[in-house]
């Protein structure tokens, strides 16, 4: 019982990352009709926004500590962040400690900027091209983006811890009458889940309750008609691309404490997020979110030792197996519309 509750919790958390990425992908696909293979790269760039900000915050000058020596026997040079000089050690440490949450503020404009540049500079020219071309050019872009990041940040993962306040885990079990330590969950992952819900809610509210959102939704349903109404849908779509990039980027920023970011994390997520989108149904926002959580939970269950003992290797293939079954039984995914992406 405890194990099941724990894995549901786990699945929701895993799923929230999938859902966020799939949401951004679907926004782009639904509005612009573009299949964006570079979306994983946007997630990765978001994560590196956090890395960059924490590097900026820890910009240091060297102070020589004569009491200690470095590996060559020379006096040790200690890096002292400028923040220490400006705000004192305590405040400086606190700011550095909160680098990841602060990165949200940093990442939003950066990601929107990258998104808009990408759309205006490249994607725009591919609206009329076949989906295969879109996949291929964005795939190329994804390779280029990740190689650029690798050039500047190296191939090794870079640790970007959460603030100290979120270290450790919360004991759910005690709350609902189980023994201690039976159902625990890390604070930061709970934060991630809440954050994902917030972002998903915000995107839906934005589309539902604003005029801008209404036009975009109408555009998703029938682009030509909206165009005929004399509404400049292109401009809105550019903004939507920026928004989707920001969603992916924020998902990446908040993900950094969970796993140390590296240059290929986007590709790791890419295949998976496409499976999520397709299972949810191309172009369906609720489908993407639903499929994200669903696959997260299924993946969690498949990784239970009891399940693996029963079916060896199931944890290796569960996502793909589910994708195959859903696509064969529900041709357009869980909530997909007819005729989308079938040719």
């Amino acid at each position, binding site marked *: 019982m*405890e*194990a099941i509750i*724990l*894995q549901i*919790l*786990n*699945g929701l*958390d*895993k799923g929230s*990352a999938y859902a966020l990425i799939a949401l951004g992908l679907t926004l782009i696909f639904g509005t612009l009709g573009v299949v964006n293979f570079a979306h994983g790269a946007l997630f990765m760039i978001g994560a590196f926004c956090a890395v960059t900000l924490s590097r900026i915050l820890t910009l240091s000058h060297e102070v020589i500590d004569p009491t*200690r020596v*470095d*590996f*060559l026997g020379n006096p*040790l040079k*200690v890096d002292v962040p400028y923040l220490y000089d400006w705000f004192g050690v305590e405040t400086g440490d606190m700011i550095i400690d909160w680098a990841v949450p602060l990165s949200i503020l940093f990442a939003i404009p950066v990601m929107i900027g990258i998104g808009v540049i990408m759309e205006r500079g490249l994607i725009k020219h591919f609206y009329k091209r076949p989906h295969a071309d879109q996949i291929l050019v964005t795939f190329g872009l994804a390779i280029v983006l990740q190689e650029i990041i*690798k050039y500047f940040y*190296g*191939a*090794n*993962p*870079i*640790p*970007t*811890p959460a603030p100290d306040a979120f*270290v*450790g*885990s919360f004991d759910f079990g005690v709350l609902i009458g189980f023994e201690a*330590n*039976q159902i*625990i*969950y*890390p604070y*930061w*992952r709970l934060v991630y889940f809440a954050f994902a819900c917030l972002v998903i809610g915000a995107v839906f509210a934005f589309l539902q309750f604003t005029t801008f959102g209404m036009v975009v939704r109408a555009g998703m349903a029938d682009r030509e008609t909206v165009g005929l109404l004399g509404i400049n849908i292109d401009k809105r779509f550019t903004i939507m691309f920026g928004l989707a990039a920001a969603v992916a980027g924020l998902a990446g920023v908040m993900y950094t*404490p*969970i*796993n*140390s970011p*590296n240059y*290929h*994390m986007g590709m*790791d*997520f890419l295949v998976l997020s496409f499976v999520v989108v397709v299972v949810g149904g191309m172009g369906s926002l609720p489908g993407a979110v639903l499929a994200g959580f669903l696959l997260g939970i299924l*993946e*969690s269950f498949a*990784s*239970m*030792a009891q399940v*693996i003992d029963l079916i060896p290797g199931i*944890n*290796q293939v569960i996502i793909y197996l589910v994708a195959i079954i859903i696509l064969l039984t529900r041709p357009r995914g869980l909530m997909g519309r007819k005729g989308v992406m079938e040719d």
Partner: protein
Amino acid sequence: MPFTKWEDFMSKSDVTRRGVLRTGAVAGAGLAVPTLFTASSAAAFTNEPTGSSVTLGFNVPQTGPYADEGADELRAYELAVEHLNGGGDGGMMTTFSSKALQGNGILGKKVEYVTGDTQTKSDAARASAKSMIEKDGAVMITGGSSSGVAVAVQALCQEAGIIFMAGLTHSNDTTGKDKRANGFRHFFNSYMSGAALAPVLKNAYGTDRKAYHLTADYNWGYTTEEAVKSSTEAMGWETVNTVLTPLTQTDFSSYIAPVLQSGADVLVLNHYGGNMVNSLTNAVQFGLRDKQVNGKNFEIVVPLYSRLMAKGAGANVKGIFGSTNWHWSLQDEGSKAFVRSFGTKYGFPPSQAAHTCYVQALLYADAVERAGSFNPCAVDEALADFEFDGMGNGPTLYRAEDHQCFKDVLVVKGKENPSSEFDLLEIVEVTPVEQVTYAPDHPQFAGGALGTCNPGA
């Protein structure tokens, strides 16, 4: 035109005469008459260097997740070449117990090298190794950052008649069931990790412990799990569960969450590289190390540590035990000499991958020098049961039966107060070589045969 007879024409040979042309033949550039090389007449072994230089092939991951480790290996090789050719401060050549190396290249031939990218894929690694052999005329291939690659390239070198000096490869199989006569491993292995860790774990955590293993679902993971499991069980630990995790897994939360429920009080992470960074980060995130289970502090063990991984996991490694082949903070003369020359050249201390690669390059050169020939069979003979010292690991034996080095193994712990980004691990114990030595027919190394050396040609 001096055409050779048809039988000679299609001679059985994968030998290339690049060596001849690369070096000697620029002189013959004026030669208008085409020459046909045939196998039987020419060399005694593949890629015999005939000019004034010899080419070594450094096959390391330059793209993919292990690219940084590969870059460090490459730095070590460049340093080794410099030292072999008499440049720099000589590094470990000055402390090496064998004094055969003169600093004038190998057998008087200047050492040149070519590099290739393994991409940490066995196919790509073999392709680049082949290009070094066939195109560049390399007489020895070395490097690599995973056991899959090491085993694949080792088999290739056996077939081609080239010496392979393995880089970082930790799986038992490299010198176990997949061992080859032309392949040599300086790095330690899973069995040694288990044997070295067990006593330290016993001292630190006691004999009454329940261990939960998370294991990477591929060969190296299996051998490591087996090694750690059997040596910890031998001292009284109980293994509660072992769970295999996919190589491509990035988020290990669903594997780590059930650990506490199982009643285990130690978590063993048989992971390497990105897997290890992520699983350790996740485990610490779950606050496992703050928990009390069965009245004891919950502990995490990482059988194979590397500094680059420790760097990726950041503060999460603090206080966590693991084993390593070598660490720059060792205070013997060899290590100090190596750290000094590496650090002076590159500005930071070398990793264990760099160390093992540097040592392998020197050992090969020394063996050739002592054998007086580049012939793989001569090198094989020179390295077999070769005992040496002064290379940073204390007295070391290159065992003839399986071409594995036997030497002390380091047990390390994540440092609580690192003074720099390189100062992440501290040495807890230097496990003496006797404790990690095993019989060549140990069950964990069963199957496979070394075969005989193949000089190619």
